[in-house]
């Protein structure tokens, strides 16, 4: 098991490295000159050239790549071209906000999604149909639109919740409960948007996985033993249905993170997604590279976590790891 995770960690590192390499060359090959952007439209040709030399952009691509990679690995992520601030500290401030938002949403949408999916698979009938319609609609909602609609209702019409940022302007002066309440109120709308969509996808998947397992012989035996339907559903069906669900959790992380990019942009949530969007608009190479690396690393770490969870939930994966074979 440890060996398996180690191997996956290595391939995860390879993915992050591949992403960085891809991004580096894409950014350099694309039109748009950060030096020109930085000195402004009124600058002379000499000023642009000087700026380019200062940024190291006049050297050949492979040399730029090697130099950049060397610095990057050592933790020197350079300074933002647009703001002049160190990239590392910009992202160090940003990533906890993203993890807080995405992590809370992940936990909530899986808990609620599993509950709804199990209920659907157990009860069937009208309730199942109604909930299926509801979950497929949630699943189809574009995050940025749902976010806008929630803002319309809860911010503009009922004036209940804020729609901007992670804390109020006066949050530094608040203490104790007021401070926590302020944070929670700012978290409410972005979290609700991400979670509602997440519930749709999870419930649909859990329902399908439950129904797949429900036909297995061991479920019939459990029922024949006289166990209560609820016990069969939770102990026998859900437990086995959770294995593909946990795998999905790992696979859905890139999508969840992607969704968070839109949500952060709409709600001005101070996370990696917003840093990325702002960096992309300003063609701020160092910021974009680092934000991409951080998002790829977050996704890879999430996948590893899911892998570990599957190993914990499914003894067969562990046994397979000991045998040295790769589960396919």
């Amino acid at each position, binding site marked *: 098991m440890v060996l398996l995770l180690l191997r996956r960690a290595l391939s995860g590192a390879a993915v992050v490295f591949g992403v960085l390499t891809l991004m580096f060359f*894409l950014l350099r090959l694309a039109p748009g000159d950060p030096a020109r952007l930085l000195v402004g439209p009124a600058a002379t040709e000499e000023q642009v050239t000087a700026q380019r030399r200062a940024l190291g952009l006049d050297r050949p691509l492979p040399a730029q790549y090697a130099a950049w990679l060397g610095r990057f690995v050592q933790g020197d992520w350079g300074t933002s071209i647009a703001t002049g601030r160190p990239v590392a500290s910009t992202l160090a401030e940003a990533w906890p906000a993203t993890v807080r938002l995405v992590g809370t949403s992940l936990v909530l949408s899986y808990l609620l999604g599993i509950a709804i999916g199990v209920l659907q698979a157990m009860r069937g009938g009208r309730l199942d149909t109604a909930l299926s319609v509801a979950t497929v609609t949630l699943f189809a909602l*574009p995050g*940025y*639109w749902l976010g*806008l*609609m929630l803002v319309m209702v809860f911010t503009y019409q009922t004036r209940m919740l804020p729609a901007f940022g992670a804390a109020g302007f006066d949050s530094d002066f608040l203490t104790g409960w007021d401070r926590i309440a302020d944070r929670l109120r700012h978290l409410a709308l972005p979290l609700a948007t991400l979670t509602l969509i997440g519930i749709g996808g999870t419930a649909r998947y859990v329902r399908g996985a439950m129904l797949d397992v429900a036909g297995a012989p061991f479920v019939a035996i459990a029922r024949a033993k006289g166990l209560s339907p609820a016990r069969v559903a939770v102990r026998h069906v859900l437990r086995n249905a959770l294995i593909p669900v946990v795998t999905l959790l790992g696979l859905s992380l890139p999508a969840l993170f992607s969704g968070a990019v839109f949500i952060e942009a709409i709600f001005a949530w101070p996370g990696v997604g917003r840093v*990325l969007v702002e960096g992309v608009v300003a063609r701020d190479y160092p910021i974009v590279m680092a934000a991409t690396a951080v998002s790829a690393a977050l996704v890879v770490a999430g996948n590893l976590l899911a892998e570990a969870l599957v190993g914990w939930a499914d003894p067969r994966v562990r046994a397979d790891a000991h045998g040295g074979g790769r589960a396919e």
Partner: protein
Amino acid sequence: MGGPESAGGRARRRAGGVTRGLWSDRRAIFGLVVLAAAVVVALFAPVVAGDPIAQRDIVATRFLPPLSIDVHGGFHALGTDRFGRDVWARLAYGARVSLGVGTLAVLVSVLVGVAVGAAAGFWRGWPATVLLGLTDFALALPRVVLLLLLASLWQPSAGLVILVLGLTGWMTIARLVHGEVRALAVRPFVEGAVGLGASDLRVLVRHILPNAMTPVIVAAALGLGNAIMLEAGLSFLGLGVQPPTPSWGNLIASGRDTLVNAPWVAAAPGVALVLVVVGATLLGDAVRDRLDPSLVVRRTA
């Protein structure tokens, strides 16, 4: 050709079974009806909606709520926006862009996915290793991050969105096709074709691929909803289809500024988007249940 195992014949029989079953599935009917309606509205936008910018004076016709009649006697089923443009007409013209871009993007995904999956499933050894490694790598990329990057590096346009969406959405299809082709490649009718002296390419294209297409259709239907949603997302952020060309995404974005006094401007394209995505998803679900790819593989392997 001919023979009881002729690829085309099997595919036809299978497809016939699918369509028969589909008509009794409410999800499939809903999906087909919604998608057909969207396509009709898109194709006949000038007929069903008229000219979206045929307004004479903005002051009298702007911000009209849904179901209102302006001073010139024009009826606005979904109201008007801040420039007095009819929201329904903008929606209908936007359907052309959104559906068109989505469909073409899925087409690119299918082409790339089928090519990669088929090659990896048919030619084992190092080509398969390289192609599957590439697929796994692409699957691990955060798609939107890549989309944002590409869409902002080059001048935003519909063509770029199609290409970018297509090139970031082929991995699921490649995996499905890979599995199918691997299972089919060892079947007697394929060995028969090889024995008759058919070339690799002919065996793959004429005999194997037609039998591997069913899961591709399901994945394409699900991918269509996703592509339309992502196109709207990019356009919403200003990195996709550029105004004044209407797309559902930039319609939502333009309604964002008038959420307070004219919420219908942003609400209408969103509802249209949700309907189409739900339709595509339900249709994909129904076809999959009719022909669960895993069941098919198990039956044929």
